[in-house]
């Protein structure tokens, strides 16, 4: 078998094992939290009788291990069950939320990834001159501000003062693609500002690293334009670290944007997960956790594969 294929299969198997471990961890986590779903739903109004009735109805009185394996096997068959708190089908609810999250993440990624790589290249081209300094200053400022503050500032300027974009990014199935784009403009802008610096700095550092190599000097002696050298000769050789950082940031755009979702009232996965954690709705938390873990592991796997494939020495081992 081709060594790359073996590697891919190995990685996949490892990924699945990681997923299983993650699901166990999530389950234990939700079990050791104080209170249970019945108490969370009834809140201050809980009486012993109502608690008992609710626990019996939800099957919460059975041992944790039994509940875990039951859930795992039905999840493997694609049945995520229904939410304990409001009886809705989880797969259906998550489906809509997931679509929203992926939409926002895609818009933010479509802007931030090309922009950050381009800015990185530009920074190398004008290294230590004012464009480099300016790019670094702006991106580092935006990453240093807490994201909710950045969100409020942008909301205040573009929504309250100028009135260009809505401050509430509520999207629903009745909206056209264009309307959705306008609705997510502000959160996408904030997310772009948040992830830009990390990817830009890594691109800059990785390319500067290979700029010392002999073949860059050769390219210069051939009389190539400086930007061509950076983009065509330096960049492909520094793809591995860049891809890793890009994937980490993509994963962040999917699983880590709950603060932005709250600030802009965006109906994504983060808010959905937080609501259900506070209600001890174990099946939903499990399902969300599993999806997040899958995305994280999947994107990292992809990053590994791309960096292997981009390196001829790994592609053709002796």
């Amino acid at each position, binding site marked *: 078998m081709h060594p790359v294929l073996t590697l891919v299969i190995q990685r996949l198997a490892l990924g699945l094992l990681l997923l299983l471990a993650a699901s166990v961890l999530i389950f234990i986590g939700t079990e050791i*939290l104080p209170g249970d779903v019945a108490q969370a739903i*009834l809140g201050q109004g*809980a009486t012993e009788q109502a608690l008992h009735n609710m626990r019996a109805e939800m099957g919460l009185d059975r041992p944790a291990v039994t509940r875990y394996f039951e859930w795992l096997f039905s999840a493997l068959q694609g049945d995520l069950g229904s939410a304990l708190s409001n009886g809705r089908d989880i797969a259906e609810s998550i489906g809509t939320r997931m679509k929203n999250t992926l939409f926002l993440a895609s818009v933010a990624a479509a802007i931030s990834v090309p922009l950050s790589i381009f800015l990185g290249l530009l920074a190398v081209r004008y290294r230590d001159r004012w464009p480099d300094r300016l790019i670094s200053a702006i991106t580092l400022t935006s990453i240093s501000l807490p994201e909710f503050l950045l969100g409020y500032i942008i909301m205040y300027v573009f929504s*309250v003062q100028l009135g260009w974009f809505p401050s*509430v990014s509520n999207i*629903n199935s009745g909206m056209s693609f264009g309307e959705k784009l306008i609705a997510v403009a502000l959160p996408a802008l904030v997310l772009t500002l948040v992830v830009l610096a990390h990817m830009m700095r890594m691109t800059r550092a990785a390319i500067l690293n290979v700029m010392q190599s002999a073949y860059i000097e050769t390219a210069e002696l051939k009389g190539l334009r400086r930007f061509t050298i950076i983009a065509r000769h330096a960049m492909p050789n520094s793809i591995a670290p860049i891809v890793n950082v890009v994937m980490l940031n993509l994963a962040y755009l999917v699983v880590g944007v709950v603060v932005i979702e709250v*600030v802009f*009232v965006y109906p994504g996965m983060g808010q959905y997960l937080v*609501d259900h954690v*506070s209600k001890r709705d174990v099946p939903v938390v499990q399902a969300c956790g599993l999806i997040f873990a899958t995305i994280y592991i999947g994107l990292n796997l992809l990053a590994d594969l791309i960096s292997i494939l981009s390196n001829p020495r790994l592609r053709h081992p002796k």
Partner: protein
Amino acid sequence: MNDQLRYYLARAAQGKMGRRAFMGRAAALGVAGATASSLLATAVHAQGPRRGGTLTVGMQGGESTNSLDPALAASQVPFLYNYCAGETLVNIDPQGNLLPKVAEEWSASADAQTWRFKIRSGIKFHNGQTLTAEDCAQTLRRHSNEDSQSGALGIMRGISSIAVEGDTLVLTTTTPNADLPYLLADYHLPIQPNGGMDDPASGIMSGPYKWAENEPGVRHVLERFDDHWDSSVGHFDVIEILVINDATARNSALQSGQVQLINRVEPRVAGLLARAPNVSVESTAGRGHYVFIMHCNTAPFDNNDLRLALKYAIDREDMVDKILRGYGSIGNDMPINAAYPLFDDTIEQRTYDPDMARHYFERSGHSGPIDLRVSEVAFPGAIDAAQLFQESAAVAGIELNIIREPGDGYWSETWNTQPFCASYWGGRPVQDQMYSTAYLSTADWNDTRFFNDHFDELLLQARGELDLTRRKGLYSEMGTLVRDEGGLICPMFNDFIDAHNDQVAGWVANPAAEMMGGQAAIMMWSAV
């Protein structure tokens, strides 16, 4: 006011002149913007309700776990949408009087134990079915079932039999209860077809709005139900409720005009928000209160001298100033204030008195620090309030040790479990219900562990007392008992602070709850 301005005002109020045009003309006549704006609001209000338009409400208190089953309603968004889609037997108006809704009229037997409600004829459910007395009976039966998870179970326990005689619903209570109709206005109790026994979360009820879209925790859309019997409610064509749990996002949405009405304005920004053009902040004195509660049966709080020491050691005025920023009033260590009917305002107000506190503390013989458990979820500003309490108690030589508990699980692990903690109460429509919920010896939520036989007797006696003067006297005695012997330290009653812009009109303060007692969406109207 000169004639020209009056003319413009009338035209603007009738919608014959745009708002912007009116403001321009008013400015030309030398009327400042803020004055013109409030003139217009008054004129629009006087013009009366106008039909049509969409109301978009931005609200805190919605989660993706919300259900359309009224029995499970526990937060602000379900509270509001249940009053849009559903209708209770009776309702309570802003003055505290009972309003006939599904029940047209009612009467009590002389002993206040048998109540007859005549059900209005011709009410239709959203599915076209006619509402009958049997539906009402089934609704109450569902909520009184011990297996139900209804938030109204506590209320229903006092009802021993539910029967139907033609178009009349007959309820018998276990003990005389002069307040029964008030209890049936509870937001958990809108009438459902067959009581919701078949499909509790269908959302099909008899209110002025029917369900169009339901995305829990995100957005709820309701459309006017054209066959609704009452034309005094339901002025907007569509009501859209957006769940905006973040306070700053809610304020921005109101300022940018994306929503016309918001709830839960934070006291510290209410003043600033009121300065924004076109925005009115509505502050309503209510029955909700922020409390520190001690278990009267647990050491060291089983000693009344220590309880009194702590009651004297809290600076109420300071808390209203700093925690509520003036949006509230001071409490008097009993759960009742002037917003309740039959309140006795002659009961002496307890004030901050370090000398008295020291005197009672020394008499109690207690020494060493006292643990006070608190969390940010106990009430807004609870941690700051606990620190103020710590400071004012320290002056009297009482050392409070503040323990910060996680917000997650506070209501199951700390409240009603630990002997001294911070909490809040939303208040109830009548005194009897407040006392029965939390101060009767047998109450489920007796969170101060107040076991006082004399108090229990007075409560039952007051319940059956149809003479209002005598009843007021009984309530006064009960309030004094709780104030002087109970485990409740009540420093403040909080106002409800909501806000709306000038695109909507018809706001009437209602002390029952926020958002005009949950009626804002069905009672307000479009002003554009």
